[in-house]
Structures are given as C-alpha cells and as structure tokens.
C-alpha cells in the first residue's frame, strides 16, 4: 500500500473512519452496558419502552435517524442548543457528530450482545459474592462485569465493524466534509454515485474489508486471551 495507491483524501477517510468507529464504540459502550443491565435485570415501568427506544435506530432507516439527531442535537434542537449555549459544543458537521451518529446506530447492536453476555452469567456467583460481603456495585464490577465481558467484547467488535460501514445517519447528520466527516463509506458511496466510479469504489471497499479483517483478528486474539482469563481454557 503506497500513498500512490490511495489518494491523500482517501487516506484521510481511512483514518477518519477508524477514528469515528473507535470513538463511537468508546462513547456508547458504557451506556450500552448500563442499558443492557437495566433491560435484563431491572423491573421498572417503561422497561419495554426503553427496550424499544434502544432498538429504534435499527428499525428506522439510517437517514431518518440522521434527521432525528439533527432535530435533537442541531443548534436549534433541545439538546444541541443547550450544548451550544453552555459548552460551546457543536456536533453537526464535526467528527464528534459523525461519531455520535455512528454510536447511536450501533447502540442496539452493543446492547443486544451485552445482554446476551449478561444472561450467561450464573446468578449463583453473584449470590456467592454477596455472602462474601460484596455490595451491589462491588458485585457488579468484580463478578458480573468480567464474566459478561465476552458479550461486551462481541458487542464492541460488531459495533466497530458496523461503525466502519455506517453511512446514512452520518451523512445526514454530519454531512460529508472531507477530513472531518468524510469517512470511508461516504467516500465509497460517493464513488458509486459517479458513473465510472466503480473502480474507486471497489478499491475503497477492499480497504474497508482489510480494516475489518484486522479488527476481527485483533478481537479474536483478545477473545481467546479473555477466554483463558475467564477460566474457559486450561489454567
């Protein structure tokens, strides 16, 4: 891979994609774990509503999610105007905004995976931790969280992969600004929309694929090591 193979703009799209995907995962992981725990363990009114809200980005088209984000986080939106007035933060047209849109889109994927991981944790172990003096939070962080980590990892990997490919919500919310919000999928999309752009699109898709493969290999390694740590393999 030489610089000649990818145009500088394309390189920046690659970098940006990685950054956006990584930031989106970083941003959404903790809330996703929280949501998963609430949904799996909590018994409160509105649980189903929360569940549905979490899945919302999955069931409506990405463009609509982008619109919704614009309504909410735009400078005139209820949240966006607060952010703007209080912290001077603007999300639309920024890398942060792209990461936010990506995070929202992949949020349900993480939540699902984390829940699955959580459901696999033996409640007997949490009970045991309780008798040993560990309170709710202590139990959660020292027993539940590590034991559900395969689910968290799986969720993060899926979200990262999906983040690399996220398109509709990003272009709608953050627009397609080279160097700031033009991620790889936007570049690919651009290429496919141009007559004769197939070659460029194919090349960039290949890069995307390569990134995903590397990410997966890494995740595989982590998962194997984690499996050992979780006592799946031989001690």
């Amino acid at each position, binding site marked *: 891979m030489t610089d000649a193979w990818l145009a500088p703009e394309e390189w920046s799209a690659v970098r940006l994609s990685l950054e956006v995907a990584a930031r989106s995962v970083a941003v959404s992981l903790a809330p996703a774990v929280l949501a998963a725990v609430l949904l799996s363990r909590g018994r409160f009114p509105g649980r189903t509503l929360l569940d549905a809200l979490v899945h919302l980005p999955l069931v409506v088209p990405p463009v609509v999610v982008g619109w919704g984000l614009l309504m909410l986080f735009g400078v005139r939106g209820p949240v966006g105007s607060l952010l703007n007035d209080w912290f001077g933060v603007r999300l639309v047209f920024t890398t942060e905004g792209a990461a936010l849109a990506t995070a929202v889109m992949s949020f349900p994927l993480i939540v699902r995976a984390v829940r699955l991981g959580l459901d696999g944790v033996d409640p007997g172990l949490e009970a045991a931790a309780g*008798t*040993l003096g560990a*309170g709710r939070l202590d139990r959660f962080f020292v027993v539940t969280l590590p*034991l559900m980590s395969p689910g968290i990892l799986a969720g993060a990997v899926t979200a990262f992969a999906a983040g690399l490919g996220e398109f509709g919500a990003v272009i709608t919310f953050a627009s397609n600004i080279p160097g700031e919000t033009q991620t790889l999928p936007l570049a690919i999309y651009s290429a496919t929309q141009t007559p004769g752009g197939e070659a460029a699109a194919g090349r960039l898709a290949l890069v995307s694929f390569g990134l995903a493969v590397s990410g997966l290999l890494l995740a595989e390694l982590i998962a194997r090591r984690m499996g050992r*740590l979780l*006592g799946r393999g031989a001690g």
Partner: protein
Amino acid sequence: MALEVALRHRFGRGGDGFALDAAFVAPTPGVTALFGPSGCGKSTVLAAVAGLLRPREGRVALDGDAVLDTARGVFVPPERRRCGVVFQDGRLFPHLSVEANLRFGLRRAPRGAEGPGFDTVVALLGVGHLLARRPAGLSGGEKQRVALGRALLSRPRLLLMDEPLAALDAARRVEVLPFLARLRDAAGLPILYVTHALDEVDALADSLVLLEAGRVVAEGPVEALSVRTDLPVLSGRRDAGALLACEVLAHDPVRGLTRLTLAGGGELLAPLRPNLPPGRRLRVRVRARDVALATQAPEATSISNIVPSTVTGVEAAGSAEVFVSLMAGQTPLLSRVSPDAVARLGLRPGLPVFAMVKAIALDPAGTGAGSL
C-alpha cells in the same frame, strides 16, 4: 444467645411442590448440624439464613438481631449479613485465581473482624501450590477446599456450610475437622453445618436439627439425641451410639492412652492424644456397635474399658439387631448386639452387666494438632 430460624416457603405449586415449614433455635456460640435425607430442605434453610432466598414467611435472628422478619418487613441483604457460606456446588469465581478467590471475602471484611489468617488457611487446606491457578483447572476436591477456604477467610459472623467436606479424602478431613472445631472454640463463631456424616457431627456439632421433608422432626443437644432409639435416621446408622461429654484427665504415653473423666461420672481410656491439655472438655461417641456386653468381668483381653452398667432397655431393631440401653452411673450408653447375645446372656432391664469398649474404638472429637 442463639440463632433463631423460623421459615415457611414453597417451591412449585400444589401437592407436587416442596413445602418448607421449619423452625429451630441454634445456640450460639456453637455448631448446629442440619441432618436429614437428600431433598429434605437443608440447602434451602441455609439459603434463607444467608439471605439468598426470600421465604414467603419467616424470621431469622442472630443473637436477637433480626436479619429477616417478613412480619415486620425486615430483610437485610446478604452482603450485610456477613454469613460465610460454603456452597454445595462450589461457586468459585471462574475468572479469578485461587488466591483472589480466597482473598475475596477477606478484602471485604470489616476492619477489626477476627479470624484465621490467609497463610493458616492455605496451609491447612493444602492449596498453596494452587494459588496462581484458575478454578477450571482444579480437581473436585481442590475446588471444595478453595470454597471452604474462601468462606473461612471472609471473617463471618456466622458460618453456613453445606457438606463442606463431602469431596475430601479421609486424611484431609481429619485435618480440617479439628480446625473447624478450634474456630468454633476460639472465636465463638456460630456454625450451621449440613452433613451426611456422623463423624463430622461428633467432631463439631453441639446441637442437631433433624429435618425430614421440610419439617423439623427432632432438635436438641447432640448428646441427648444420640441415645434416642426412636429416630431411625440416627439410630439406624452403623455409627450410631452415645455421644458423651468428658474432660481430659491425664495422659499415659507409655500405655499409649489418654484418660477421660465422663461428665456423668466414671472414666474412659482412649487412644493417646498428647496435644490435648488436661482439663480440656471434649466429646467421644461410644458407638453402639463397639460396645460388647458381658455378665462376668472378662479377663486377659485387649479391651481397656470395662464399665459396670445396668441394662435399662432392650429394643429389637429389625430381625438381626437389638439395641440395649445402659446406664453406667449417670452416663447413658447404647449397645447393639445380636438377638443371640440377648438370649445367651439373658439381657433384660435391671440386669447388671459389664460394657466392654476398646480404647481404639474411641476417637475423642474436636482434637488435632496446629493452632489458629
């Protein structure tokens, strides 16, 4: 002071389910053994005491301090009950090393709580070489030892143990039992102990709760229950027999014997246990099957204890065995003999006899080397 337990609970519906309706009082400090057939509700009681099961109705109070009282809406969560539990199914944390498992409770114990130290417990349980391992790589017995250690090290106010020694070999069991006894004695730590083995009851238990199908069928000091012939769960066992409270009188290293004074008067010769200081109170179970009877004082035998007694009861247990209840002074004894012997010796209430017990047959419980 006592641990008061009164529970009503029900699993499943209708006649098919299991109903627990048990109440007992376990004196503290002291060890109370829960004894009963499989499925009678022992583990369920333990879970309710530990706070892991919320029974439909009930009250659990340790030394007057209620940790559960459904009538008043009291429910102290498990982490504030400080009950060290040895679970029947281990429940080691698979992602933590053996050492981290052992230290889990230790680290969370309140300051100032007393109990055995890490090194003591590790040495006692012989798990020193396993500290860096994870539970998945442990054998069955090794897992059980770590689970035991974890509970012991959590500096509990109350220990709940569900067949803690079931997977241990005899040698290890002989080491662990006296340790538990010393824990009980030194720290005054109350223990609720589930077991199927009478030798564990002997070594540890002060009182016994007999469960059957979710109900308490008998409850009381172990000694009192040990001479009752109407509780088949106990008397039907091969190792049934009178459990006698006694005190170490003196040691005779040359003869290899230790002399014990019985609480009810009289003496017994037991195998030498030089590490028991004179004056130490302990218990021996005189198993009914180890007690032979004679109507004349026998001579030139290896049998060290020949105790003049009076027959107080003769009760057939099946076609092949007869329970003979005896009084040696103030001390009740049980003997199990064949119908043949009853006929030959003409055993009947009131008859004076000699109870013959080999010293070797006695195993003063609650003893052992090492220190806390």
